[in-house]
């Protein structure tokens, strides 16, 4: 195994995210980084997973000579290799609402200590500093997938104590909150940033523990302090914060091959 010596932290975020995919089961990929990360995972680490999108692709199988990862989830290249292609009610409805998703992958503008996401607005919803595009299917996936991974650049403006608007519930405001709201208990499980990988302090899917985000590992040559410096609250650290393996040459070269037009990982974008 040869490690890459030339990579960005945004690339490492995708690589680390891809490594966190489960080895099997049904994965629903949200807009943006989840798509390329999911294709990377499927091709390198988790060939058995069934990749699905909310627009209607089911069990997407990237072919070996794939010219690109799909740009967004509406890219027609997703018809090439999928076992089934239908529509949003099948995908967000029968698939997700029906309980057939094992793992959801999201990105957002903000995440908070309880893993709640915000895709809608910065500032007060009634008088926003900045309006965003909107949640798409992010809300559904956060509400209904039993496990969720979120990919998000580590920036203080993104890692906030409380999201300005909770579009996509993690553990909401602590243990038991999801069940009180009428959701299943699990919520957000993993956050991968440009610094490291986070879990959540709950042993039983949101029933007990603080349900707060916990830094579990950092990228090579980075320290927990970097994460803390770009985080808006006092970050919990795992008893031992591991250091992740650097990306391999294979990981980085495939990632770049999947992103020939630099839609996903461009300098300055993340």
């Amino acid at each position, binding site marked *: 195994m040869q490690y890459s010596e030339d990579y960005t932290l945004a690339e490492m975020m995708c690589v680390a995210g891809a490594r966190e995919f489960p080895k099997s089961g049904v994965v629903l990929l949200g807009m943006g980084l989840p798509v390329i990360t999911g294709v990377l995972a499927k091709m390198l680490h988790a060939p058995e997973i069934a990749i699905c999108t909310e627009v209607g692709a089911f*069990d997407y199988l990237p072919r070996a000579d794939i010219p690109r990862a799909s740009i967004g989830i509406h890219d027609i*290249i997703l018809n090439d290799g999928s076992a089934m292609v239908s529509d949003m009610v099948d995908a967000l409805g029968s698939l997700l609402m029906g309980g057939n998703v094992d793992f959801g992958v999201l990105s957002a503008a903000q995440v908070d200590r309880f893993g709640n996401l915000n895709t809608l607005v910065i500032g007060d919803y009634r008088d926003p500093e900045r309006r965003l595009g909107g949640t798409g299917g992010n809300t559904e996936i956060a509400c209904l997938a039993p496990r969720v991974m979120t990919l998000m650049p580590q920036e203080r403006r993104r890692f906030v104590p409380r999201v300005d608007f909770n579009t996509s519930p993690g553990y909401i405001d602590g243990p038991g909150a999801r069940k009180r709201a009428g959701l299943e208990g699990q919520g957000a499980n993993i956050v991968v940033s440009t610094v490291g990988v986070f879990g959540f302090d709950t042993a039983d899917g949101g029933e007990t523990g603080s349900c707060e985000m916990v830094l579990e590992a950092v990228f090579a040559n980075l320290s927990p302090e970097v994460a803390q410096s770009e985080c808006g609250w006092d970050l919990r650290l795992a008893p031992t914060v591991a250091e992740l393996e650097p990306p391999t040459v294979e990981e980085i070269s495939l990632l770049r091959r999947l992103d020939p037009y630099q839609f996903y990982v461009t300098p300055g974008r993340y």
Partner: protein
Amino acid sequence: MTARDAIARFVDDGDTIYAGYTCIAFGLCYEIIRQRKKRLEVVGGSVGQQATLMILGGCVDRVRSGYLGGALRPGVITEMMSDGRLRYEDYSNQGIALMLMAGALGIPFIPTRSFLGTDYLRPEFAEHPGAYLGDQKWAEMESPFDGQKVVLLPALRPDVAVLHAQRADEEGNVHAWGHQGDSKWAYWAAKKVIVSAEEIVPSSAIRSDPSRTIVPGFRVSAVVHMPWGGHPTSITGYYDYDYGFHARAMRAVTRSVEAYEAFAAEWIHGVEDHAAYMAHYREVFGQEAIDRLVATDGPEPELPVRYTHAPTLGLG
């Protein structure tokens, strides 16, 4: 997987089984009878002759449907309904279809405007002798948005759906075409799906026309290669309903226990699997009877489709 293995492994006594009026997995239902499963509940908008046989075979003690063909005329089935051996909850085709849809969508209920003004909703009929759902059958409310009266139908999630389709791959990805009845929502609502298919094809063939796929393989617990698996019912593009067989061998089954037993001894328990059943059919009625069923008439698609994309997005 063989039908024997699939039914043995995935159908448990007491299960709720979806078995509909189109895409009928007749061969799988024969196998359920062959294995003498017990206390099943059969559900489906309309349920056809395969349900009748499962009831007569002693496999079923509850039916939730809009139409039970076996009860159309007086006989063993109607006797079972009146003496309590077969309990039943009457809905309608669309009632069940919507309940399966709600089950598929993971929502606890779905409203409809059907049933309003009917006697189904009269409270004095809620306690009929066949009843087993009680207050879980339906509810009435007014829409908070416009005051419209609606009937709320509870979600229906069968334990198993058995379906027959034209072709599938080894992973269970299924291509089907022709009218589908309520089968699509059953594929998603059921906890386990068992598919029999006329043909098993390479996965690449399924994936080359993914809009033809009606259920992805990860939803399918078992796929069984079973030519003529819908017989004596029809499957678009392969063979037609065998009314001749119905008239010659099957018609009497509801009239008496003995008539059913005679049919079952010859056509279900007397053959080891569906291939043997079809071989017996050939012996009894001749190859020409089979040939007459083969679907030779009607259209083939005139235009191809393409799933192509540009390699470069116009940026290359």
